[in-house]
């Protein structure tokens, strides 16, 4: 028997009605009595399939419909059109068997109680998910081994650093050993060390448990470290579904070189590459340069100009996607 897909999404759509008004007092009064609504198509006939134990990056600029899609797949939102099956269930029916085999972790929301140590919240989870003692202890030991939780789960959550809290949030979401993980910005706001730690954890967790993971992130490093495949949506529509390598080649075959120059004279950087957004604060000017030309251009810049500071970075995910599909 062929193994069926873990997640199947078919022409999934979600339209919101949002009330809108112009700024100002009189508009506020008018809208109090008579609201005008506008339909916003947050997700527009999106289809894809994800196989068991795949790790897929779900990308798109802010407001592209990522979170809305994750919420539909986890069962929080009813779609206005289309179908989705996860592990054979229709998510928004909120069947207990389904809820017990998936998890949604949102980097910007708290699942854990603020006033008590995470260990106590874990006990609550154990009761809610009806986990036998032995299983619960084994999972917790394993999560502790991977995330080094022992000390931090004894402190009240409000006393934890953001990174420590995220570890606990992830652990809380994984105690019931879900087969499907929806992760919405799991590394947001964390420092580099904590990001790397979470990334390594997810990789190892996926390897050990064979869980299917669909994650969104603004950090390219998250995606490159974890996902071989990415799905990109923009303005609610699916724009790309395929290998990460192809994406980089196809969409972002360039890097950003930023320079801060020692004199105030206006130098024309467009000779070296396509000028990009400058950063006022650090007085850096940026240019886009094809990946294979970076060394060459850097050498030329250093030779030609009074360079005080230079950085070479990947273009931010947002701008890559924006550029690829808008430009």
């Amino acid at each position, binding site marked *: 028997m062929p193994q069926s897909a873990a997640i199947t999404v078919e022409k999934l759509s979600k339209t919101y009605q949002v009330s809108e008004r112009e700024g100002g007092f009189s508009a506020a009064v008018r809208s109090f009595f008579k609201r005008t609504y506008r339909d916003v198509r947050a997700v527009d006939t999106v289809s894809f399939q994800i196989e068991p134990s795949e790790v897929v990056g779900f990308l798109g600029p802010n407001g592209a419909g990522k979170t809305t899609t994750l919420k539909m797949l986890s069962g929080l939102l009813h779609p206005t059109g289309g179908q989705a099956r996860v592990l054979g269930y229709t998510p928004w029916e909120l069947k*207990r068997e389904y809820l017990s085999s998936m998890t949604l972790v949102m980097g910007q929301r708290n699942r854990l109680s603020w006033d008590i140590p995470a260990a106590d919240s874990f006990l*609550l989870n154990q009761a809610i998910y009806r986990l036998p003692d032995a299983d619960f202890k084994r999972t917790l030991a394993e999560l502790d081994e991977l995330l080094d939780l022992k000390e931090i789960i004894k402190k009240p959550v409000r006393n934890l650093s953001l990174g420590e809290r995220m570890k606990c949030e992830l652990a809380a979401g994984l105690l019931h050993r879900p087969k499907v993980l929806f992760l919405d910005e799991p590394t947001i706001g964390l420092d580099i060390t904590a990001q790397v730690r979470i990334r390594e954890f997810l990789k190892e967790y996926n390897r050990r448990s064979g869980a299917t993971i669909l994650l969104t992130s603004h950090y390219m490093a998250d995606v490159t470290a974890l996902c071989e495949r990415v799905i990109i949506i923009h303005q609610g529509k699916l724009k790309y579904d395929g290998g990460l390598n192809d994406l980089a080649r196809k969409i972002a075959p360039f890097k950003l070189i930023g320079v801060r120059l020692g004199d105030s004279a206006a130098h024309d950087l467009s000779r070296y590459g396509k000028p990009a957004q400058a950063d006022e604060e650090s007085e850096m000017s940026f240019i886009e340069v094809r990946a294979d030309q970076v060394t060459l251009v850097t050498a030329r810049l250093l030779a030609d100009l009074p360079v005080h500071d230079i950085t070479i970075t990947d273009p931010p995910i947002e701008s890559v996607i924006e550029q690829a599909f808008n430009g």
Partner: protein
Amino acid sequence: MKNTLCLIKVFLQVNLQMSLAYRADTVINLLLNLMWLGWELLSLSIIFSNTKTLGGWGVGELITLLGVFRLVNTLMAALLWPATEKFNASVRDGSMDYTLLQPANSLFLVTFARITVWRIWDLVLAVILVVAGTFMSGAGTSPLSLLYFVVLTLSGVLIIYSLWVVLIALTFWFTKFDNNVTILAALLDAGRYPSTVYPAWLRIIVTFVVPIALATTVPVQALRGELGGQQVLIFLAVSAASLLVASQVWKYGIRQYSGASS
């Protein structure tokens, strides 16, 4: 059922730990409560130094009523007010999402999310008042009227609980509706005295609109032997129906939440 009890046990444990974390708060609250009880008894004794009965009720019966009132009050203060606070916050900050995605009844999770555990002490006080009052009013309390009393107290509490569920579920439609239980809290105090002492309009409100009297006056009326089995059955049916309606409203509320939030 076993799972439900187990869940309640863990909820209690966790909340006990939370209360213990705030020691001073717990001690002060215990003392404040004793003070309130003293004040309430004092005001009763002032009333009865001037008159023999209040709306036809003797001092023993009023102490029983005070006990029942405090029972209802305690359930509110220990369970429903903290749950309301947590619920309103979780709808606003989105952590409601996590509650809905847990494999357990969401209304149950919302109800028992926060328990002010030290209120257990109030419950004990309330029961003492009920027992003492019943003894004071003396003869005439048959085992049957005692049974009616217990049944009616429970059904009255369920009716008030249902009203609470409907009120907080409205938050799903309005998103920002922090005053959702204000009317309940404001009228709760009316349960302190028998509804028969109030003017007709207020009596109608506390019986039908915000049915505090159903959980306070009515059970004590049964204890006084004023109610028959048929009436008790009607109250039971009403409480079952209101619970049913409330859980349906809750379900629609969740659907609404799922449809509108982003």
